[in-house]
C-alpha cells in the first residue's frame, strides 16, 4: 500500500513501479460497513427486479426442460452412440471449472497474503458455490433413472454391492461433494463475523433473529479470533489442494480412458489451468456489473480488475502451451488414431467449434497485453465473454471431437444437440445468475471483516513481536 514516492539517487520512483492502493480514497471502519451493507438494508432497484425476473424465467425454463427429460428419458437429448456423453458432461466440467476461480481467490491468495483479494473473496466464493450447484445438476439428471442416484453413495444395501471406487466417476462424486461442502463451510465461516455486524446493526426484529442464528453468538473475542484465524488459514491451505485435485479428478474421467485425444497425461494440469481461466473470466464479468451498479468502485477498484485480467492472460498463455503440447505430442506419438483426432480438431467436421475455441481462448485474450485494454470495461467484458464461450467449446471439442470419430470408422457418427440440451444449458445460466442476484441483495458481497483488516492503519505497528 505504499504509494508514496521513494526518493533515490536516480530520481523519483517511476510511475510503473508504484503499487496502486487496494482501496481508493479514505474509508473508515464504520463507513465500510455502511457502504457494503447498504444494498442489504435498502430496497432493491428496479433494474435488479428486472434482471431477477429474466434470470429466474430462464432458470424455470431450464427446469421445465429437466422435468421433460425426467419424464421422457435421455432420448430427449442428442446423446447416442458413439457420442454417448455430450452436453451433460460438457456442462458439468464447464461449471465445475468456473467454480475454481472462487477458491483460488479466497484460499490460494489468502496464503500468498495478497491484499487485493479481500474485496472480492466473498463474491468469488459465492460464485464457486453457485457454479458447483449448477454443475451438480448434471451428474444427477444424466443418469437414466435419476431417482436412483443415491446408489452412488457407499452405504450398506440389500443389493449387497458397493459402488466401484476404482472408477473416476466415483472419484468425481467424492471430489465434487467434498469441494461443495468445504467451499460452503469456508464461505459460512467467513460470513459469521459479518452476520454479527448485521445482527448488531439491524432494527428489524425478524432480521435480528435470523442474523443471530446465523452468527451463532459471535462476539469478536480475541480468544475466539485466534482459533478462527488458524482454522481459516488451515482450511484455505486444504482448499488449495482441492482446487488442484477436484479438476484433476474431473480430467481423470477422460484421461484414464483409451479414447484417442483423451488419454493425454497433461490433462490434469491443463484442466486446472482451464478452470482457473474460465472462472476468472466469469468473476471479471460479474464484478464489472457489481462495480457499475452497486457503488463499490472505491473498494473493487480498477486495480483489482486489472490484476484479474493479468491472471486471465497468464492462463491464456498456459492454455496455449497445453494446446501446442497436445498437438506436438499427437504428432510425436506416431499414433495414427491420436494424429487423426487432432487433425479433426482443426480440419474435421467440428472445425468451426475448434477454431472458435482457439480464437476465443488464445487469440482474443492477447488483447490484455495492452494496459489500456486491461482497464477498459468494454474490452474486459468482451474478453470475458469470449473466454467463457471458448472454454465451453473447448470442453465440446474434447468430448464430442474425440468421441464422434474414434477407433472404428464404422462407428463414426455426427452428434447433434437437441433443443432440450440447449434449454438445460441456458437454464443453468439462469440458475447461476438468479443465485448471484439474490446473493447480492441478501448477503454482504464484500467480506467487511476481511476488508477492515487491510484498511490503512487498521493494524498496530509491529512493536517487536515476531509471529513465528
Amino acid at each position, binding site marked *: 500500500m505504499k504509494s508514496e514516492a521513494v526518493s533515490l539517487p*536516480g530520481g523519483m*520512483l*517511476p510511475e510503473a*513501479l508504484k503499487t496502486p492502493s487496494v482501496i481508493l480514497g479514505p474509508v473508515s471502519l464504520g463507513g465500510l460497513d455502511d457502504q457494503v451493507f447498504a444494498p442489504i438494508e435498502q430496497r432493491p432497484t428496479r433494474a435488479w427486479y428486472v434482471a431477477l425476473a429474466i434470470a429466474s424465467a430462464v432458470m424455470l425454463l431450464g427446469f421445465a426442460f429437466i422435468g421433460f427429460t425426467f419424464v421422457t428419458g435421455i432420448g430427449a437429448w442428442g446423446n447416442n452412440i458413439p457420442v454417448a456423453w455430450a452436453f451433460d458432461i460438457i456442462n458439468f466440467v464447464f461449471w465445475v471449472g468456473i467454480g475454481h476461480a472462487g477458491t483460488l481467490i479466497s484460499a490460494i491468495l489468502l496464503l500468498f497474503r495478497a491484499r487485493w483479494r479481500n474485496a472480492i473473496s466473498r463474491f468469488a466464493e459465492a460464485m464457486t458455490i453457485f457454479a458447483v450447484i449448477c454443475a451438480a445438476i448434471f451428474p444427477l439428471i444424466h443418469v437414466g433413472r435419476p431417482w436412483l442416484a443415491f446408489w452412488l453413495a457407499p452405504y450398506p444395501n440389500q443389493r449387497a454391492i458397493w459402488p466401484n471406487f476404482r472408477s473416476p466417476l466415483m472419484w468425481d462424486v467424492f471430489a465434487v461433494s467434498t469441494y461443495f461442502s468445504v467451499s460452503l463451510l469456508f464461505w459460512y465461516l467467513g460470513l459469521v463475523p459479518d452476520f454479527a455486524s448485521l445482527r448488531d446493526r439491524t432494527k428489524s426484529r425478524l432480521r435480528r433473529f435470523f442474523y443471530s442464528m446465523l452468527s451463532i453468538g459471535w462476539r469478536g473475542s480475541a480468544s475466539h479470533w485466534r482459533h478462527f484465524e488458524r482454522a481459516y488459514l488451515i482450511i484455505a491451505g486444504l482448499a488449495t489442494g482441492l482446487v488442484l485435485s477436484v479438476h484433476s479428478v474431473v480430467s481423470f474421467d477422460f484421461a*484414464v480412458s483409451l479414447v484417442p485425444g483423451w488419454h*493425454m497425461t497433461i490433462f490434469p494440469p491443463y484442466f486446472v489451468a482451464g478452470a482457473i481461466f474460465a472462472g476468472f473470466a466469469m468473476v471479471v464479468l460479474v464484478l464489472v456489473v457489481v462495480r457499475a451498479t452497486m457503488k463499490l468502485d472505491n473498494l473493487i477498484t480498477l486495480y483489482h480488475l486489472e490484476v484479474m485480467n493479468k491472471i486471465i492472460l497468464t492462463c491464456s498463455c498456459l492454455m496455449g*502451451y497445453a494446446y501446442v*503440447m497436445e498437438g506436438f505430442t499427437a504428432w510425436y506419438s506416431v499414433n495414427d488414431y491420436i494424429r487423426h483426432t487432432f487433425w479433426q480438431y482443426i480440419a474435421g467436421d467440428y472445425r468451426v467449434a475448434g477454431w472458435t475455441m482457439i480464437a476465443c481462448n488464445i487469440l482474443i485474450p492477447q488483447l490484455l497485453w495492452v494496459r489500456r485494454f486491461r482497464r477498459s470495461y468494454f474490452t474486459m467484458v468482451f474478453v470475458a465473454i469470449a473466454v467463457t464461450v471458448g472454454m465451453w467449446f473447448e470442453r465440446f471439442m474434447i468430448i464430442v471431437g474425440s468421441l464422434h470419430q474414434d477407433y472404428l470408422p464404422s462407428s463414426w457418427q455426427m452428434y447433434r444437440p437437441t433443443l432440450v440440451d440447449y434449454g438445460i444449458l441456458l437454464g443453468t445460466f439462469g440458475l447461476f445468475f438468479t443465485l448471484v442476484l439474490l446473493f447480492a441483495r441478501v448477503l454482504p458481497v464484500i467480506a467487511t471483516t476481511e476488508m477492515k483488516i487491510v484498511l490503512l492503519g487498521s493494524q498496530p505497528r509491529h512493536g517487536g513481536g*515476531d509471529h513465528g
Partner: protein
Amino acid sequence: MRREGVTRVLAAGAAAGLAGVAACFVSGRERFWANWILWFLFLLTIGLGCLFLVALEHLVAARWSVPLRRVPERLSGLVLLMAPAALLALFSLPVLYPWTAPESLKDPLIAGKAAWLNVPFFALRVVACIGGWILGYRIFVGGSLRQDREKDPRFNVRARRFAPAFMILFGITVTVVAFDWISSLEPAWYSDVLGVYLFAGTFLAGLAATTLVVLHLMARGRLPGVGPDHVYNLGGFLFAFTVFWSYIGFSQYLLMWYANMPEEVFWYKERLEGLWGPLVLALAVLHFFVPFFVLIPRDAKSEPRRLTGVATLMLAAHWLDLYWMIFPVLGKGPLFGWPELSFAVFFISAGLLWLRRDLARGADMPMGDPFLREGLEFRL
C-alpha cells in the same frame, strides 16, 4: 585459516573426482555419458529453477523476496556453467540415444518423428535454449548487478516488462529439455506432461538451493534484516511445490497405469521392476512423504535447522528423480558404484568451489533495488 582449508578440501575432492570421471570415460562409455547427462541436467535444473524464481519475483512484483533475490541470481549462474557441459553432452547422442543410429529409422515409431529427432535439429535446439537462458541471465542478473552500482530504478521496469516473455521462453525451453534429453532416451515413449513434471522438479530444486544458501548466509550474519518471516515464506513455497511435484508425478503414473497401453506403460514397467521398485519407493518417501510431514507444522517452515535438512533432502531427491528417469536405459538395475561416486564428488566439489568464489564477491542483497527497505520490513 578455515576458509582456505575448506577450499583446499573441495579442490582436492574436485581433482579426485575428475580422475574418477576420466577413468570412467575410459572404462565404460555408456555409463560415463549416463552420469554426465544426469549431473549436467541436475545442475542445469538448479540454475534454471533459480532463474525462474528471479523472473517470477519480477513478474508479480513481489516485495518480500527482494532482500533474498541476490541468492537465486547468483545460483542461476549455474546455467552459464552448464552451457559447455550441454555442448559436451552432445557427444553422448550416438552412445545413449537410439534414434541417432541410421538403422533405427527402420522402426516406424522412430522414422515418424525423425523430423524432430535428428542430430542437427537437436543441436540447434540445445544452442537456442542456451541462447535464451543467457539472454534471461543477462537481463535479470546482469541488470540487477548493474543496479547495485547505478541505483537506477528503471531496471525494475525493464525486468518486469521482460518477465512475461521470459516465462514463455522458459516454458518452451524446459519442455524441450525434458523431451530431448530425458524422453528421447526411449524414443518410442511419450508423455505430454513431462515438461510440466521437469518444471516442478526444477523449481523445487531452485527453491531448495536458494533456501540452503539463504540460511547459510543468514547464519553468518550476511543478510541483516532478513528474519523468520522471510524464511517462513521460503518454507511455505517448498511445502507447496513438494505437493505440486508429487501431484504431477503421481497423476502421470496413475494415467499410464490405469490405461495400461503397451506403447506407453513399458517406460514405467522398466522403472518399477527388480531393484528399481524399492528405489522408486525411496524416491516417493524422500521427495514427498518426508518433506511433506516435516514441513506441515507452522513453526517448522521457519526453523533454520529443519529447513536446511529438508532442502538438502530435496536436492538429493531431485537428483534421484533424474537418476530414476535416465539410468534404466542402461538396461541394468540401479548402479551405485565408483563411477557414480566420482561424478558426485567431482560435480559437487566443483559446484561448491564455484559457489564459494561467487559468494565471496559482490553484494549479498540487491543494494540498488528501490524496494529493498520495504522487503526487509516485511512481516507476515
